[in-house]
């Protein structure tokens, strides 16, 4: 497949890196130095030029491209680039945007501006944050099959009743499957006798009800999070506040910049906006931020987010959620005590993998250690009309069937469950096995 990526910033470059192994990738960037750098660091063709100009796109071979990704840090440029690409050729176009107003416009028809898929990173990140807030102890939550199935990643707290139990004993929920345990750097595909340890990251797939019930068992003394503090008025912070408002929560948002604070206060009706430095101890004490149920750090930089989160932990906040731009930091953040580190890049990457694999839906687990795929079983698939235990024998060992939906209802997979054509299957797979699995099913 031929992929053209315009805008080789952090996001563009990381997409290019992940696609370079299996596809022909052409990267366009306006910055000559950046182009130079990419030419040597990645196995891609890097072109210096403007992604919105026709001549540059032709130079990149837009006529033969299958996928066009516009990921500059300017919304308008991305939209215009996609429109330009569509004007001369017919690639699948993906545009990254920051503002939801373009997304709203795009949603009117589904291909407005010549964009086939619009990814609003900030909104997707905010949605993940809100889902994580809604599920105690969770670090990542994604929805599949139109919301009928949840994938959740939990960190097992020390002292939890689940710690020390075997999977067989812990999993007494009908519509829930334990698909993977991440311990240290390794991914364990659990069997009935696997013992769950405190500090493990446990990946489960199942119905929302069962997942919530399990979260309740995992941390039994948890009460519903009402007092939510958002630190930093970035676009992600604003979207999170707005989503929480939609769920009848009244979060507090701390923003240091005077003008921005006023702007946000005008925009967010149900949120109390406070203008202060989020690391000012006196202010945090006076406003009793330490008593908050959740503190979400959405400041502009990873370092500030880390500092704000650690300070909140120190003050006694129950749970901290942090946005981490740099993928490499996520584990580090969680290791030093941040409750959940959310990587906005995952959201974009998931959409792109979804397209390149042709799967219905994808979620990255632990930022790329493993993936959860939703596949619609088509006639001729090796899964069709066979029991799961039969087809599993043909698939790589690092794959688990997490859940199945048939005609809108959830079926819990057992060894003898027979998969039919048209079923939606949610699979957990280690990243190394994903390519093979996607091809086989």
């Amino acid at each position: 497949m031929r992929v053209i990526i315009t805008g080789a910033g952090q996001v563009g470059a990381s997409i290019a890196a992940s696609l370079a192994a299996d596809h022909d990738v052409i990267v366009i960037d306006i910055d000559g130095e950046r182009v130079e750098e990419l030419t040597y660091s990645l196995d891609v063709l890097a072109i210096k030029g403007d992604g919105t100009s026709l001549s540059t796109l032709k130079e990149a071979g837009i006529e033969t491209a299958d996928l066009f990704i516009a990921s500059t840090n300017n919304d308008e440029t991305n939209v215009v680039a996609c429109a330009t690409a569509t004007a001369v050729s017919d690639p699948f176009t993906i545009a990254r945007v920051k503002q939801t107003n373009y997304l709203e416009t795009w949603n009117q028809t589904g291909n407005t501006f010549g964009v086939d898929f619009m990814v609003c990173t900030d909104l997707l990140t905010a949605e993940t944050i809100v889902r994580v807030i809604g599920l105690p102890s969770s670090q990542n939550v994604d929805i599949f099959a139109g919301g009928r199935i949840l994938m959740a990643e939990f960190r097992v707290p020390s002292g939890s009743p689940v710690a020390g139990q075997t999977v067989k004993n812990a999993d007494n929920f009908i519509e829930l499957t334990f698909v993977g345990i991440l311990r240290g750097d390794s991914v364990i595909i659990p069997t009935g006798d696997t013992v769950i340890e405190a500090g493990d990251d446990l990946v489960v797939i199942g119905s929302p009800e069962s997942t919530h019930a399990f979260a309740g068992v995992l941390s039994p003394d948890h009460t519903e999070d009402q007092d939510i503090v958002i630190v930093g008025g970035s676009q992600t912070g604003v979207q999170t506040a707005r989503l929480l408002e939609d769920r009848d929560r009244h979060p507090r948002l701390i923003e240091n910049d005077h003008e921005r604070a006023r702007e946000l206060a005008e925009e967010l009706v149900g949120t109390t906006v406070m203008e202060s430095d989020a690391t000012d101890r006196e202010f945090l004490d006076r406003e009793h931020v330490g008593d908050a149920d959740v503190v979400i750090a959405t400041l502009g930089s990873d370092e500030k987010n880390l500092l704000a989160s650690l300070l909140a932990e120190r003050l006694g906040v129950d749970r901290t959620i942090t946005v981490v731009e740099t993928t490499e930091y996520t584990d580090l953040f969680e290791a030093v005590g941040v409750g959940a580190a959310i990587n906005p890049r995952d959201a974009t990457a998931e959409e792109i993998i979804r397209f390149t694999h042709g799967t219905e839906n994808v979620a990255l687990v632990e930022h790329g250690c493993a993936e959860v795929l939703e596949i619609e079983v088509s006639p001729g698939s090796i899964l069709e009309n066979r029991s799961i235990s039969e087809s599993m024998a043909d698939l790589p060992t690092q794959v688990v069937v997490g859940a199945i939906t048939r005609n809108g209802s959830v079926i819990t997979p057992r060894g003898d469950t027979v998969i039919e054509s048209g079923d939606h299957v949610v699979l957990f797979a280690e990243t190394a096995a994903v390519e093979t699995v996607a091809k086989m099913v």
Partner: protein
Amino acid sequence: MNPGWIGSREQLRVDWRASVGLVGTVVKYLSGAFLVPLVVALYYGEDVPTFVVSLLFAIVVGVTLERVDPDPDLGAREGFLMVALTWLVVALVGMLPYLIAGVVGTESTLAQPENALFESMSGFTTTGATVMGDISLDRHSHALMLWRQLTQWLGGMGIIVLAVAILPELSVGGAQLMDAEAPGPGIQKLTPRIAKTARVLWMAYLGFTLLEMVLLYGLHLLGLAPNMGLYNAVSHALTTLPTGGFSPEARSIEAFSAAVQWVIIPFMIVAGTNFALFWHVVTDGPKQLFDDTEFQAFTGVIAVLTAVVAGQLFLGTGLQALPVAIAPFNGNLEASVRHAAFQVVSIVTTTGYASMDFNVWSAPTKYVLLFGMFIGGSAGSTAGAIKIVRWVVIIKSLRRELFTTVHPEAVSPVRLGGHPIDERTVRGIYAFTLLYLVFFFVGVVLVIADAWRVGHYLSAFEAMSAVAATLGNVGPGFGSVGPMNSYLDFPLTSKLFMVFLMWIGRLEILPVLVLLTPAYWRT
């Protein structure tokens, strides 16, 4: 070649000729309004010369003033001067018929220029305070009384708004001129062109006036209002919609049946509502009206005050002593509610009609009405006083003040109907309200001192009500300035002061006050 700008001589930075010239144009066109009473005068065969002379005089004044600057170029500063002057000159021209009729006719009180000016200013500013010694069609011609009603109707939606609607030369600076004149903070442009907006507002105004006329006369034809003939129906429709309050009947609306009183109440409420809302109702449906914060507050205030007054009247505690002439309504629910609603709506919307002489009400009940005089109708209505929307903003910003005392870092904009209001506007509202109250208190002191000077007995309550009623364009006050009485007994100086109060009250103080600052006239 004179380097005057170097410094020795201060130069005027306001092109007053342009303002005066435009005032002339407005007066010239407005002289056409004299045709209405002239036709009535011809019909009844009375007072014809009065209006012929007035008409000619108005045209002469208009054309003369227009000559001052035949090609006026109106800037922002000239706009303030033009609006303030227009209202003054229009009141001066409008006093002519009273003066002439007073000199040649049977009514002697209006022969004094200060009385004629008071009556004219009270008319145009839709105050409704009167100095007519004897209000009756036996003593005054139908034409003169109709002129009195008509001045209120012309002033209600605004002379400048009317001028902007009609005169093409005002289309550019029109929005700013309307802003200076319109009640409430800021105007809403309903259409891209300001002249169209002005026309829309006047059409709505005209429409409601005609509707009330038809309903009132309809009641007469149905036999429910024996004395509400065509003349009275027209007269009262002309003074309800501008929240004016003049009535050709000495006993105001008490002279009419309960049915008439019930019909007038909703029209007073309409008059106190933002007319722009009716446009939104037409374009976007009735939800626009009921979702409007100001309309909710407006109707809420009326409902609460009505309930309080009705309760007092029903229980009998609302009456001081019952004059024989009024049927007892202690225990009569319909009458209690009707008089309470009528009076509360009349005062809050600054109309000034009376369904009974509320001087006979007990002190607490009267104080409720005095309180109502400061509330006023909605922004963009024809009502006077401080206006509901300002109170809503003040209450919300005070609540915010309490919140930020506990949470000093909280940033919380004041919202109106979900939309944040910028701090400049909030500050402007505080400034206006404070100025209004300062003018009220200083006014009370001056009026009391002036009355004391001439040995005229005036209680503090009467003085307060008189100042509140003129500054807020309400009309009647309490005691000697009650709804069935008049302002005739005040000394000349007090009357002129009240003319000033009505003038600045109608223009909402700031556009007039800005003319008195040196900064306005210089750089």
